[in-house]
């Protein structure tokens, strides 16, 4: 005999259904992860495009931007994975690395143009 036999449990809430003031956890670490996945997809789309439509500055710009984000965020996970940076600094890593990445990106863009 199981306990649910006599009363109905509601199936688990997944993300706060019906919550009028619903706000997902706005934790930056999660967005970092999401953003990395989004840029991954962007790269998959942009890379073949880039091969087909060569030398389109806007395409190059977008591709490089996506690669920058993807690489810096990936670097962050690698640094954390191998304990090269303590997990306490995960947020600093996000801002620091993406910041650095964008600076490099700006420099590269300025150079190749």
């Amino acid at each position, binding site marked *: 005999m199981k306990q649910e036999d006599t009363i109905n449990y*509601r199936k*688990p809430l*997944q993300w*706060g259904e019906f919550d009028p003031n619903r706000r997902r*956890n706005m934790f930056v*670490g999660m967005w970092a992860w999401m953003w990395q996945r989004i840029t991954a997809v962007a790269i998959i789309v942009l890379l073949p495009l880039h091969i087909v439509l060569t030398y389109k500055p806007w395409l190059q710009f977008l591709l490089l931007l996506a690669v920058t984000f993807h690489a810096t965020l990936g670097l962050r996970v690698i640094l954390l994975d191998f304990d090269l940076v303590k997990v306490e600094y995960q947020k600093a890593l996000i801002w620091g690395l993406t910041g650095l990445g964008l600076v490099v990106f700006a420099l590269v863009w300025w150079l190749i143009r």
Partner: protein
Amino acid sequence: MSTGQENIRKVEMYRYDPTEGGDGHFDTFDLQIKDESNTTILDVLIRIQKEQDATLAFRYACRVNMCGSCGMVINGREGLACKTNVSEFATNERITIRPLNHFPVIKDLVVDMDPFFKNYEECLPFFEPKEIVEEPAIIRPDSPERQAIGLATECIACGCCVSSCTMANYHEGYAGPAPLNRAFTLLNDSRDGLFTERMDRVLQSCYNCRTEFNCTEVCPKEISSTRAIKFIQRMAMKEPFRKIEEEKAAAEIENVEPATVIGKAEPVISMSNNGCVGCTHNQPDVGRRDFLTKMTLGIGAATALMVGGVMASAFVGPSMRKKETLWVPAGKMDDLQVGKVTTLNLNYTETIGIYKQDNVKPVMVWCQSNDKNIVVYDSRCTHLGCAVRWDKTQNSFLCACHGGKFALDGSVIAGPPPRPLDHMEYKIDNGNLLIAMVS
């Protein structure tokens, strides 16, 4: 000193009545609060229950952040009701309270924590002494092991982290942050004897973490499960090498013949019984297989990306995991004594992709009657997988780890094993016994 001011707060609360069923809804209450900095969300709930709606249900016990009963989602963020003060929310803000995510709701804010404990148990969260000793171990507080464990043992099993982790939702079978954190503390504990078993359990899980840090953000005890999971991942990388070495050592000790002849049966009188620590030597090597699968998949995916076709990997993936049945010869049927249990060692080679591995696995054969009516038992205990051996004097199968005891017909007589011993498939070919190994 108390500085909060008097205020009327709107509190929105999730309600679910099990006698009515349905999806549940939100109710709004107005509550006058004298001193917000002195009022916890738990106080708010208690007051609403006393003053406005006695049917409200929530869970609490200690009221001082020690028991982990009162986890809930307050304004979109997991936390303990008794640790969150009303003053943490801006005065014009509504307070929204709902039950934890990913757990079935019993009533209002009360959830069923069984899924949590099930995952928790899955990771073997319990200490199993390596050896029975009298005196507590001498371990310096500054030893690397204790430094690594730190305060991670202070988890109060409140479930906040699991609720906040989106992976716990999307990956069926992901153990989740708190269970992995507990496994991490035990994997680092030099006194514990279940390293191998536990590692096997968490290996699959630990790669499901996406480094979101949600769990770390919400933990009321300031434990970072992410750190624990990363630690396990690093330990896991050493796993394949450690296992190879251990196997070599074991092979030397037990003096098992190098398995050039596949499937040579040798009845053994007593099986070496080395307790929980050693019992997985005889099992298919999950760690290595996992590692290799991941490696291959990784390289495959990278290659696929290079040629621009991510899709290709989808075809490669499943084919790597196909199950195969290997018929391993176990010896002549005539060697079996009627009415007795004979322990046989199966020697066989398993092929995983390009990798070949020699395995030895003991099985127990019960020959019931003359007409070749036999039962083949897996020697793996159905509790935690320690090696089970036949005990002539007690006329039963014994597991040394936690006193599991099985009758001749495989049923559980005593101890924690949840189900009877597993049977293995066999066939008889020309008087030779063949046993099925599923890899």
